[in-house]
Each structure stands twice: as structure tokens, then as C-alpha cells.
């Protein structure tokens, strides 16, 4: 058991602080990335990152503490899973019955309890600093792969796409670490929306009334319309160009068209935007898209006017989880894992589900749980992950890891490495310095 203790966030330019350096000096090479089996096994074709924005309660999902005092454990039972000795909250029965198909990391640690800062750290591995914002894991994947010899993205789709209703945000603004960061908006994910009915949309074209793939007979008329509309920002123009390229490519259009799925398949994922978004991600995997981020919600807030019910359960944690959030996740994620398995895609696809932090183990005066960056859980499946493992351990109340705290930078390094963006490419790009591959998963 290796216990590093507390640490501070690395900053964007990659210089580390405190315990990372002390640990690196004690275990030479461990933090340099790409060491054990992870670099020896075949890279994956795709990463699917299910981003549970708002911060799911780790105690009420994948790290229950049934023997903790009442003010910590909460009211839900812990149930057995397909892995002997492993228990989940009773709110996740479908995932419990598939626990032998994935592994958990129960010792994550973020450095900030603010959604925007923790989101940036969680999606880039670095805090936003005076020198800007590091590129997100998806941006690194896309740019790194494009710099990789022999890589071609045959999907007709951008190499980094986001499924959801836009850049996740809280009530005060968007998360800065969502896209290309210092590399510019050209490295942001290309966003596609998905409704609960499975209707996908390309935001770059929604500004053109009446324009759909079905009425593209007159391409010159379309091009003129696009030129007219392209008078906005460069970023908007680029988005539009990408959308145009998608419309001009039948293969790419097909990947985004859920109406091509049998009704029974669509039903498996559930009649929710997140469920259908997971199905859309599976179609993108089939098309060969390298990095797909499915956003559970656009907003973090669970119960705030004009937001879409994320995992930020400062009130009614113990009602929103059983009534809404967990059933929705417990349907969509197993459907995705089953679907990828049945199609022979899971071995070449790394699926990761997590939020920006966990929630306070001690129940708050509002009978709920607040932000908790000191300890939280992630779920990893496919892509060479040895299933049925639990990596890391939290203490008896779920307050802190008792094993090595797993920083977001290690998550990003692992995703990059498994996609084939190796340590040399990462060094050339100047990204994820100080991160290590979570070789324990492979």
C-alpha cells in the first residue's frame, strides 16, 4: 500500500509540486508514463468518456460504506455484485450484475471543490494558471493521433467529438478546460446534440433554418447559404466547415443518424438524452472516431431553473439519486457495455465514467451531500482493462484515499497512452508532463 498524502495541483506548464516529485524520486520512472502492460498491449481505436458533470456521490454509488456511522453511510443498502466481496449501492443493480465487466478506481483526488476549476482539472489534468489552460484529454488525443505515424481517421468525423448539449457549465459560466485550451478553439470538440428521442443535431447548422441532410440536393445553394452564414467568428466558421464536411460525407452522416438503429437497440439505452447519447457514441466508435465525450448534462446543478439536472445534489441527494440520476446511468451505461461487447468492439474501446469530484461523506445540514474533491471513484471498461478489479481504496468513511491518490493527470495520461499517443508524442506536444499510466488497470 503506497500512501502519498496530500498534493497540490500541477500547473499548466507541467511543473509539478510537492508529493509528485517526492514520489518520483522514490520510484524512478513510475510517473513518466507508459510503463507496464499498458504500453505493451494493442492501442485502442476509441475512448468513450462519460462525463458525469456535477460530481456523483461515491458513497451512494460505487463506494458504499455500510458500516460507517449513520451521518455518513446514508439510507441506501449495499448490494452484492458479480465480483465476490465487491458491493455497490442498491441504486445500481444493472451495473452490479456486470461488475465483472469493468474495474473501478476508488482513490481519485481532485484539487479544487469548485465545479469550474475542478472540471478544468478533471478534463485536462492541470489547474488553470497564469499561463492559461491546458488542452483537454480529448484535444490531446486528437492532436496526438494526428501526429502519430500511420494514423488515419477514416470515420469522416472529427477526431474529438462531444455528445451533449454543449460545454458543461454551472450557473456562473462554462468550464475553461473543456476544449483545446491554449491550443485554441480549433482543438475544441465538435459538438453534436442528442435528444431523448434520439434526434441528433449539428449545432453548426442549426442557424440555417430548414436545412437538413434530407434537402441537400442543391449543393451550390447550400454553399451560398453557408458563406452567408459564415460571417461570424473564425471559430463559428470552422464549426460550420466541419458540419459541412459531415453533411457531404454519407459515412459520417450515417454515424450520427440514430434512426438507423433498430427500435429495440434504442430502447435498451433508455428514452433519455444521456441514454441516446451513449448510443450515438457507440455509432461513433463503430465509425472509428478516436475520442468521444458524452456529457451527462449541460449543467452541473441538480435542481436549478433552466438547468438540466446534473449530479450536483446539494439538496435531495437521497431522492434525486434513486428517482432519477442512478436509474438513468444504470440503464445507459450497461447498455453501452453490452452493445460494445456484442459487436466485438469493447476490446478496442476504452470506456471511462466519472465526474469532476465526489460528494461529502458526512451528510450535510441540508440532508444531502456537498462537493468532495478529496476522494471519488471512476469506472473503467474495455480497451485492455482487466475487469473485476478495484484499484485504490478509500478510508472507512470515504473521506480520503488510503492508497495513492489518483490525480486527473494520470487519467489523461492513461487515456492518451491507450490511444497510442505515447510518451514521446506527449513530450513533443508538451502535454501531461508528470502523469503516469494507471498500469494497475491493465
Amino acid at each position, binding site marked *: 500500500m503506497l500512501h502519498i498524502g496530500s498534493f497540490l495541483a500541477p500547473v499548466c506548464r507541467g511543473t509539478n509540486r510537492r508529493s509528485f516529485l517526492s514520489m518520483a524520486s522514490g520510484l524512478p520512472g513510475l510517473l513518466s508514463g507508459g510503463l507496464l502492460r499498458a504500453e505493451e498491449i494493442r492501442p485502442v481505436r476509441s475512448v468513450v468518456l462519460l462525463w458525469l458533470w456535477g460530481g456523483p456521490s461515491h458513497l451512494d454509488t460505487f463506494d458504499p460504506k455500510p458500516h460507517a456511522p449513520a451521518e455518513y453511510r446514508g*439510507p441506501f443498502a449495499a448490494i452484492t455484485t458479480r465480483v465476490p466481496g465487491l458491493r455497490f449501492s442498491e441504486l445500481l443493480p444493472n451495473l452490479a450484475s456486470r461488475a465483472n465487466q469493468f474495474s473501478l478506481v476508488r482513490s481519485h483526488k481532485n484539487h479544487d471543490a469548485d465545479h469550474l476549476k475542478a472540471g478544468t482539472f478533471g478534463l485536462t489534468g492541470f489547474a488553470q494558471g497564469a499561463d492559461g489552460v491546458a488542452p483537454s484529454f480529448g484535444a490531446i488525443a486528437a492532436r496526438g493521433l494526428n501526429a502519430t505515424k500511420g494514423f488515419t481517421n477514416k470515420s469522416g468525423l472529427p477526431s474529438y467529438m462531444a455528445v451533449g448539449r454543449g460545454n458543461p457549465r454551472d450557473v456562473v459560466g462554462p468550464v475553461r478546460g473543456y476544449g483545446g485550451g491554449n491550443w485554441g478553439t480549433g482543438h475544441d470538440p465538435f459538438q453534436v446534440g442528442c435528444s431523448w428521442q434520439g434526434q441528433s443535431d449539428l449545432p453548426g447548422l442549426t442557424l440555417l433554418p430548414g436545412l437538413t441532410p434530407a434537402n441537400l440536393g442543391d449543393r451550390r445553394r447550400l454553399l451560398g447559404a453557408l458563406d452567408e452564414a459564415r460571417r461570424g467568428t473564425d471559430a463559428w466558421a470552422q464549426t460550420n466547415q466541419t458540419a459541412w464536411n459531415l453533411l457531404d460525407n454519407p459515412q459520417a452522416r450515417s454515424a450520427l443518424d440514430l434512426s438507423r438503429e433498430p427500435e429495440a437497440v434504442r430502447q435498451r439505452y433508455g428514452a433519455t438524452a444521456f441514454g441516446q447519447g451513449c448510443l450515438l457514441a457507440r455509432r461513433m466508435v463503430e465509425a472509428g472516431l478516436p475520442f468521444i465525450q458524452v456529457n451527462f448534462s449541460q449543467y452541473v446543478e441538480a435542481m436549478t431553473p433552466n438547468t438540466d439536472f446534473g449530479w450536483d445534489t446539494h439538496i435531495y441527494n437521497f431522492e434525486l439519486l434513486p428517482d432519477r440520476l442512478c436509474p438513468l446511468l444504470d440503464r445507459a451505461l450497461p447498455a453501452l457495455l453490452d452493445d460494445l461487447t456484442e459487436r466485438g468492439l469493447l476490446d478496442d474501446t476504452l470506456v471511462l465514467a466519472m465526474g469532476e469530484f465526489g460528494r461529502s461523506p458526512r451528510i450535510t445540514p*441540508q440532508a444531502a451531500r456537498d462537493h468532495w474533491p478529496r476522494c471519488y471513484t471512476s469506472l473503467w471498461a474495455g480497451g485492455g482493462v482487466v475487469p473485476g478489479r478495484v484499484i485504490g481504496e478509500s478510508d472507512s468513511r470515504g473521506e480520503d484515499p488510503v492508497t495513492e491518490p489518483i490525480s486527473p493527470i494520470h487519467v489523461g495520461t492513461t487515456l492518451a497512452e491507450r490511444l497510442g499517443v505515447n510518451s514521446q508524442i506527449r513530450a513533443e506536444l508538451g502535454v501531461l508532463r508528470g502523469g503516469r499510466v494507471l498500469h494497475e488497470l491493465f
Partner: protein
Amino acid sequence: MNISRLTTDGRVKADPRWMPGKNRVAFSIQESPTLLALASVPEQGGASERLHPRATTSEFELCWNGDGSRLAFLQNRGNLNLKLVLLDASGKESIFDPGGGFAGVRHPAFLPDSGRLIFAQPAAGGQQVGSCDLAGQNHRLITSGPGICEHPAPWGGWIAFASSREGVFQLYTCREDGSQLRRLTRHPGSDTHPAWHPSGKWLAFCRRTEGRNQFFRIQLDSLTVQPLFLGEAFERIDHLAFTGNGTSLLFVGEKGGGQDIYRLDL
């Protein structure tokens, strides 16, 4: 047992409630990605309609008093903030405000013949059953003790509720003043959503066993627990409530990934 599907759109739903004197069933529905709305459907099924079509913020957990002259529901009026809205027969609105910031109440229900409402609310280090009068005033706590209380349901001077005071959610009853607390169930999974049969002799409730919801009944004299509806044909069942005469159960059922309101004739 005969099962009728009252809605067919498949959207996310919750909280079916019998509407006294209306021959309709009310419920909460995910109207848009950012809006939970109150709606109703004929008791035999058919087209549903919104109760407050102009509402622009989420409303849910609707309840009526015995004769249907008053109603109450929760309304999301701020960041992580819920108010309890009470409407009388003339449409006059009163508010029970649990405070600014992160605050709210949940699961309102009218106490018969007492001129008060009960609800679950954060208090005393956990979540308790509280009450207020019909003007949203004169608040008082009914329960005390550790853990989380949910789903308070009144009948004849008694309140049934779920509480985690001794571990996971189990069912309890107490008098309207909080006295005569009695534990009803002992089960390793959660027992929630108690619903009084109009006779007052038994409760229907939702039992979660290894994560799967099933409906059971418990006789209040003997505490005998029996299966009521196991929902084998459904992917998930939840949110049960009785119709007015107690001959049917309303519930949210999930099939084919979609959620709808169903009526189970007992």
C-alpha cells in the same frame, strides 16, 4: 390483476396522484431537458395535458386535500432551492419557504381534517417530517432522531413514512404529533413510498431487494408482509399511489426504455 397504460409518450415521469373528483391522474413529466412539469391524464388513459402550461420552472410532487379543493406542489424557484406552493379553491397562492440558499421540502401531503400539510425537510442533522398550516405558516417538526425521513403519508391521525434511523430505509408510523413511533418493516433492502389503503388497515409500499423494486403490502395489525405486484413484465417500477377508492394502484413503469403511468386494478 389488470394493468392499464395511461400514458404512452415514454418520457421520464414520477409522482402519480389521483385527482379527487376529476377522474384524472396527475403526475410529473420531463417536459423538456430543463423542465419538470405537472400534467394529468384521464383515469382510463388518453391524451395528457399540462396543468400549468405557462410554468417556466420545474414543478413536481403534486397533492390534493380530500375533496380536491386545495392542492400543493413543489416549485424550483432558485439555485438548488424549492418552495412549497399551496393553492386554495380560488387559486390564491401561499408559500411555505424553507429558506434561501440550498433549501427545500419534499413529498407534501395534506393531513385530513387538520388544516395542515406534512412534508419531508432537512432538520436536526438529518431529514425529518415537518408540517405547516394552509397559509404556509406555523411550521413545526413532527419527527426527530437520526437519519433521513421520506414519503410521509397521512391517514386518520397517523403518519406512515420511510426512515433510515436504524440503517437503510424502513417503514414507520407515528401519530400526527410524532408520538407512538412504531417500526413496521425489517428488510435488508430499502422500503419506501408507503401508501395507505383507504381502509387504513394496510399499506402498499415499494421494496427494493438487491436493487430491484417490487410492490408489497403490510397489514398494520399483524405486520404481515405480502407481495402485491412484483412487476415482472417491467424493467422497473416505482412511485406507487392509490386511486381514490383504493381499488387500483397507480405507478410509474418502465418498459422499452420509456416511462409511463400505469394503473393496476387490485
